[in-house]
C-alpha cells in the first residue's frame, strides 16, 4: 500500500520531468541535463560507496570511458549499440578493478581509485597520441539536448529503482551487515567479495553510461576534458552532502549543490571560489549528518530504527 503510493508519486514526478523539455527554454534544459547527470552519478556512487563504506574517486574513470567510447565509435556503429559497447567496457574494467582492490580499505582504497582514474586517462592519452597519432575526437551525432535529457532521466530513474530494489533483497541486507562489520558478515556466511564486486560493477556501468550519454553535448572530446578529476570530487561531495546511505540522499545532495554552484558562478564570477568554499565550511558545521539527516532531525522524532542506520563512513584500515 505504502510502496504503491510511493511508486505512484515517483511515477507522476518522472512523467512531469519527462515533459519538462516542452515547457522550459534551452538553458533550463541544460540545467536539467547537468542536474540529472549529477543525480545519477551521485546515486550510482552511493549505490556502492554509500553502502559499503568504500569511498571511490574512480567515478571519472568510468564516466570518461563512456564518453570516449562514444567519441571513438559514434561514426562506425548505430548509437544504441555504442551505448551497449560502452556499458560492456565499463563492466570489464569494473570487474578487473573490483577483483584487484579486494584487499584495500580505508583511505588506501580512496587514493587507489584516484590513481586508477588518472592511470586510465594517461593510458588513453598515450594510446591516442602514440598509436593513433591523434588526440581530440569529434562527435557529430544528430542528438538534441532533449534526447540527452530523456536518456539521462531514464537512467536516473533506473538507478534509483535499482537502489530501492537492492535495499529490499538479500544483497541489501548483506550490505548493511558488511557496512557495520565485515568480520560479522563473513561469519554469518555472506560472500563479502562478490557482494562488493557486484555492486561496484553495477555502479560503474551506470557511471559509464552517464558519460556516454552526455558526451554528444560537447562535440569535441579529449582526455583532459572527459577525465577531469573534478567530476569524481563533485560526485563524492554531493553524495556525502546529501547522505550516501539513503535512497534519496545523493539526489538531495546533488540538486541543491548543483543549483548553488550555478547560482554562485553566475552571480559572483570573480569571487565564486571564495564564496563556495565558505559556504561549504558553513554547511559542514551546520549539517553534520547531511541533508537527509537534517530533514530527519527537523521533521521526525527519532525512532530506535533511525539509530541503527549510520551515515556513510570511511572504513578504518586498522580496525
Amino acid at each position, binding site marked *: *500500500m*505504502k510502496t504503491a*503510493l*510511493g511508486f505512484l*508519486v*515517483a511515477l507522476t*514526478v518522472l512523467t*512531469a*520531468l519527462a515533459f519538462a523539455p516542452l515547457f522550459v*527554454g*534551452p*538553458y*533550463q534544459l*541544460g*540545467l*536539467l541535463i*547537468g*542536474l540529472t*547527470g549529477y*543525480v545519477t552519478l551521485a546515486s550510482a556512487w552511493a549505490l556502492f560507496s554509500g553502502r559499503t563504506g568504500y569511498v571511490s574517486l574512480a567515478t571519472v574513470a568510468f564516466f570518461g570511458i563512456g564518453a570516449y567510447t562514444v567519441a571513438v565509435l559514434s561514426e562506425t556503429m548505430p548509437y544504441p549499440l555504442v551505448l551497449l559497447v560502452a556499458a560492456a567496457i565499463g563492466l570489464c574494467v569494473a570487474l578487473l578493478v573490483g577483483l584487484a582492490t579486494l584487499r584495500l580499505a580505508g583511505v588506501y582504497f580512496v587514493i587507489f581509485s584516484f590513481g586508477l582514474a588518472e592511470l586510465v586517462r*594517461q593510458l588513453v*592519452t*598515450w594510446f*591516442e*597520441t602514440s598509436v593513433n*597519432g*591523434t*588526440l*581530440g575526437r569529434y562527435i557529430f551525432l544528430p542528438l538534441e539536448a532533449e534526447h540527452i535529457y530523456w536518456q539521462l532521466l531514464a537512467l536516473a530513474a533506473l538507478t534509483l529503482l535499482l537502489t530501492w530494489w537492492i535495499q529490499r533483497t538479500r544483497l541489501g541486507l548483506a550490505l548493511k551487515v558488511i557496512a557495520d562489520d565485515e568480520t560479522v558478515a563473513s561469519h554469518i556466511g555472506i560472500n563479502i567479495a562478490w557482494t562488493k564486486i557486484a555492486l561496484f560493477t553495477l555502479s560503474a556501468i551506470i557511471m559509464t553510461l552517464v558519460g556516454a550519454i552526455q558526451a554528444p*553535448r*560537447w*562535440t*569535441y572530446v*579529449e582526455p*583532459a*576534458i*572527459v577525465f*577531469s578529476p*573534478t567530476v569524481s570530487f563533485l560526485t563524492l561531495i554531493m553524495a556525502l552532502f546529501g547522505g550516501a546511505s*539513503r*535512497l*534519496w540522499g545523493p*539526489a*538531495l545532495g546533488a*540538486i*541543491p549543490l548543483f*543549483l548553488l554552484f*550555478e547560482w554562485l*558562478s*553566475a552571480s559572483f*564570477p*570573480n569571487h*565564486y*571560489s571564495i564564496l563556495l568554499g565558505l559556504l561549504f565550511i558553513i554547511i559542514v558545521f551546520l549539517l553534520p549528518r547531511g541533508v*537527509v539527516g537534517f*530533514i*530527519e532531525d527537523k*521533521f*521526525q522524532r527519532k525512532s530506535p530504527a*533511525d539509530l541503527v542506520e549510520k551515515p556513510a563512513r570511511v572504513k578504518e584500515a586498522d580496525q
Partner: protein
Amino acid sequence: MTTITRRHALRYLGASAILLAAAAPIAATADDRTSVKIGYAVSKTGGNAGGVGITTLPNYELWVKDVNDAGGLELPDGTRLPIEVIEYDDRSSAEEVVRSVERLATQDEVDFILPPWGTGFNLAVAPLFDRYGYPQLAVSAVTDKAPEFVKRWDKSYWLLGGGHDYADALAKVLSKASSDGTINSKVAMISVADGFGIDLVTAARPAMENAGIEVVYDVTYPAGTTDFTSVINEAAASGADSFVAFSYPPETFALTQQAQVANFNPKVLYLGVGTAFPVYGKNNGANAEGIMSLGGIDYNNPENMAYRARHEEVTGKAPDLWGSVITYSSLQMLQEAIKRRGLDRDAVSDELSNGTFQTAAGEITLEDNQLRTLWLTGQWQDGKFVAVAPTDRDGATVPILPKSAWQAQ
C-alpha cells in the same frame, strides 16, 4: 496503514525538490536598449585559467573599458551605447562552458557572445553559437580543420591559423638555415600529448620532410611532466642541431631552465606556448636571445605598440606576443562591424566575413572566415620577441642563427 512514514515523507520531499528545481523560472530582463549586452564564459578557475589569464580575459576587459571610455559602441546612425558585460566562469569544464553559452544566448539574451579559451572549448560551443545565430570569433584555437568548421558553422571565424601554418613556417626557417650551412639538416622534436601538441607535430612531420629536414628524435610527453633530463640527453645525443618542442607554458619554462643546467646548446631552439610571454624574456634575460617560438610581433607597427602600451597601463601587465593582439583585434573587428551594420547578428557576421578592418594587428580581411595574415615564427632578439616568418610579409625580421650558447647567470 495510511500513516506516512519517514521513508515515504522523504521520498516525497526528494521528488518535490526535483520538481522545484526543474520549474524554477528566471525572469528575463526586458530589452530597453540602453546598452549593448556582451557576454562571455571563460575559465577563471581550473586548469585553463593560466591561458585565459594571459591571452583572453585581460583583452576582453581592456576592450570593454576602451569602448565604454569612448562613450560606448557606435551604431550606424552615430549613436553610442555602452557595453554591459555578463560574464561566467566555466571552471575549465566542458559541460559548464556549454551551459553558460546556452544561458547567455537564451536566458540573458545578450547581443553578442565572446568565445571561450582553448581549441576544445571553442569546438564545444560552436554548435550553440551556430544554432542561436551568434558570430564566433575563435582566437585561442589552433586547428587545421578550420575550413571544415567554417562549412559546418558558417558564423564561425578562426583567427589563429592551424598547425600546418606554424609547422611549414618553421620548416622553411630550418631549411634556409640548413642550406646556408648554419645548421645541419637534422631536427629533434618533442610535443605535449594534448590537442595543441599533436596538431603541430603531425603537421611538422611532413613539413620537415618536404623541407629536406630529417627528424631524428620524435617523442610525445604527457602534460604535467616536470623533468626533461632524459629527453634533453637524447636530443643532445641525436646529433641534431635543431631542437623543437611543441610545449605548454609550464614545460616551456622547465625546458629552458633544464637545457641551461644540462648545458644543452642546440643551434636552433624552438619552444612552444609560453615563450611569447613577456615574463619569459624578463626571467631569462640574455639567455632568451635567439630562442624561437610561435607568433612574434612587428615592433615597428605603431598601432600594435600603442595597443601594448595601453594594455600594460590598464591591466598592469604586458600582453603576450602571440595571441593577445589577435584577441584584441578580433574585438575591434566586431566593434567596427557593429558600427557599419548595427546590432543585427546576421549583418554583423556578413561584415566580418567580407569586410576589411583596421586593427592593432594591422589591416585584416578574412579569407573563408579565417585570418591568414599571421606571424607564424618569432624569435627573441635584443629583449624583443620579433616576428621572423613569413619572411615575405612587411615587418619581418631576419632570424639570427645559430643561437648563442647559454651564459652563466
